[in-house]
């Protein structure tokens, strides 16, 4: 009897205890709600990459990985709830794919010693690692994106934009407003005229904005949109016969979801890219062998090769690489979130390492440091071919204008540090 009781007690204890042997990567998904069409490829890509590591390598450094999904519906409150309910499981790094959720998690995660990776979104000044110890936004930020877009415009305009008009159509939210300051500074530097056109959530009705564009005839239109706003904007641009090659979206306005509903009329639309499109990379061979062919693909298994699926693969690869570096730095396989942060800060994504990981030519090399949590800040321009239904990179990876961005980052992060009594580190 005593033996049986002891067995039951041991079993109950084991069931109640957290699994300590996994490296937990939380995934704040949005497979439902107004942004589900974008949330699904992001969630699938993240899951598939970690599952592939488990199948192929037995995890990272001999420890299996576990993707802990929590549905946010792209709702900030739910995102915070997800964070609170999953952080106790040993979650190593949060990637919210929402600027709103990221802003809410910055103070919480910093206090909890858990890193956040907001890849190409979130608070731009988090690039300053001296102030934002636990927030990383490599390989690029919104301000990099604004600068890269303007550099491209200067390039296609023959080097001078002083007589040009550029309009920004933006989601009327923290996310959409992020590039305004940078664009204003760039407008002063290069002499172009900037027009700002806000679109309210969700962006289903944009007639007023596009009538204004038709009246004012800007030479170029930039877009900071998300979800339905992107499809409607591209459709409206086509309706007023705005030249698509002069319409450039940020990297969150440049997925297949944004152009396919518009059909042939979207041909020639441009968007920024953090990485190259398509499936012509070694990592896809391994995904096919270890995941797709075994029927282990996440979701419907129909998102491979899309822009957002690739972005999630990239994010997962960077997280896995940082975990591996953290294991090496601390000499333990079962790392904590604090150790993961150290790994992220020591990340060195050289071309050679990218090639080893099956990502040769996928994205530019970059290095993270204590001071620089933002990586290279490079991005390329891709263009949509409506008949082939493919994105193609039409430029090399372009470096952003650091002479404009760095002072803005210093100013914004200094204000945040003063507001929150943060002492600068990395000294």
């Amino acid at each position: 009897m005593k033996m049986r009781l002891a067995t039951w007690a041991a079993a109950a204890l084991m069931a109640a205890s957290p699994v300590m042997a996994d490296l937990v990567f939380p995934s704040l998904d949005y497979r439902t709600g107004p942004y589900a069409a974008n949330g699904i490829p992001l969630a699938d890509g993240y899951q598939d990459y970690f599952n592939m590591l488990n199948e192929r390598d037995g995890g990272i450094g001999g420890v299996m990985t576990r993707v802990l999904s929590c549905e946010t519906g792209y709702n900030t409150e739910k995102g915070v709830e997800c964070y609170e309910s999953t952080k106790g499981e040993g979650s190593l790094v949060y990637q919210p794919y929402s600027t709103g959720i990221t802003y809410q998690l910055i103070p919480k995660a910093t206090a909890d010693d858990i890193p956040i990776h907001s890849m190409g979104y979130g608070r731009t000044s988090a690039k300053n690692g001296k102030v934002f110890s636990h927030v990383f936004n490599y390989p690029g930020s919104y301000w990099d994106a604004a600068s890269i877009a303007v550099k491209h415009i200067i390039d296609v305009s023959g080097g001078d934009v002083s007589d040009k008009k550029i309009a920004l159509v933006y989601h009327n939210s923290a996310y959409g407003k992020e590039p305004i300051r940078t664009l204003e500074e760039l407008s002063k530097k290069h002499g172009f005229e900037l027009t700002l056109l806000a679109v309210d959530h969700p962006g289903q009705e944009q007639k007023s904005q596009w009538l204004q564009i038709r009246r004012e005839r800007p030479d170029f239109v930039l877009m900071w949109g998300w979800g339905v706003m992107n499809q409607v904007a591209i459709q409206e641009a086509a309706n007023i016969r705005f030249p698509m090659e002069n319409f450039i979206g940020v990297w969150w306005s440049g997925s297949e979801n944004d152009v396919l509903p518009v059909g042939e009329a979207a041909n020639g639309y441009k968007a920024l890219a953090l990485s190259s499109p398509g499936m012509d990379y070694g990592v896809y061979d391994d995904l096919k062998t270890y995941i797709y062919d075994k029927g282990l693909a996440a979701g419907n298994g129909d998102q491979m090769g899309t822009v957002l699926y690739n972005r999630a693969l990239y994010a997962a690869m960077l997280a896995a690489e940082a975990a591996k570096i953290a294991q090496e730095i601390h000499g333990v396989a079962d790392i904590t979130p604090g150790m993961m942060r150290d790994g992220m800060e020591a990340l060195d994504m050289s071309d050679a390492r990218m090639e080893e990981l099956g990502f040769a030519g996928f994205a530019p090399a970059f290095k993270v440091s204590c001071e620089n949590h933002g990586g290279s800040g490079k991005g390329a321009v891709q263009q949509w071919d409506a008949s082939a239904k493919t994105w193609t990179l039409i430029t090399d990876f372009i470096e952003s204008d650091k002479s404009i961005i760095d002072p803005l980052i210093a100013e914004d992060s200094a204000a945040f540090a003063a507001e929150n009594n943060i002492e600068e580190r990395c000294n």
Partner: protein
Amino acid sequence: MPEQLLWSAEVFLNGLMAGVLYALVALGFVLIYKASGIFNFAQGVMALFAAMTLYGIMNGLVPFAHLINAVFGTEIHYFGWNVPALAAILLTVGVMIGFSYLVQRFIFRYLVGQEPIILFMATIGLAYFLEGVGDLMWGSDIKTLEVGLPQGINETIDQVTFDAFGYGFFIDNLDIVASCVAAVLVMALVIFAQYTKQGRAMRAVADDHQAALSVGVSLNFIWILVWSLAGFVALVAGIMWGAKSGVQFSLSLIALKALPVLMLGGFTSIPGAIVGGLIIGVGEKLFEFLIGQPYLGGATENWFAYMLALIFLLFRPQGLFGEKIIERV
């Protein structure tokens, strides 16, 4: 003509067209509220569900394919046929009638005589349920509706106005089609309500459902009829809005555009929905053009529509065409 006046005229016309699209959504609310006193929170989701179903039928999608494949380990996604748009629309109407029957049979039959707030809460539950079922049935990806609706600038109007004023007006072909469809829809609804037996019974229930019951009108049947009509209106709204942006979840949020229209036009009047839609459409577009964009940084349309409706409410709490409620104690 001065440039500013021409632009205002263009904005005015586009406001009218946008108003028609808002009115299309508001019509569904009015039909149900008028006949049953229920404010149907699920109307926007019904538009989404109807448009998704239409897409699914047209493209031969297997409903609940993901669920079936997950449970049985199969790989079924398509039936392998395509259905012509008109036939698919008729089949979707059938689905919406079936949906109306189920709503009546499993929800509102048990709530007859309950407080309006209970009925309203039931429609909130219905909205969330339908959202989930729609996703499960047809998937969450963005669907492109190809029912042959024209889109883009109307060349004739552009040319005629250019010849007349030296500035070509932009009017979207889709908006013109939507206006024609809305006009036909309203006429059909009015004729149905005035000249058919079922329509008269519907009006009788709307006036006094107990009196209607006493002369043998079936409340059950009328409610199913009204929900079916609202389902049909939702399908039309779903097609028009879905053609603009693809069929996706945010289609359900178009209901937010209908609320100020209802507040302004009244919850019980079909002409009220149309006139309310036009006033809101023109009002918000002109405000954005004349004040919002130049002085307030833009994006004023969402809140201005509600403000305009509230101003009207100060003077006519029942809305422009709503029935004045006189309660004696």
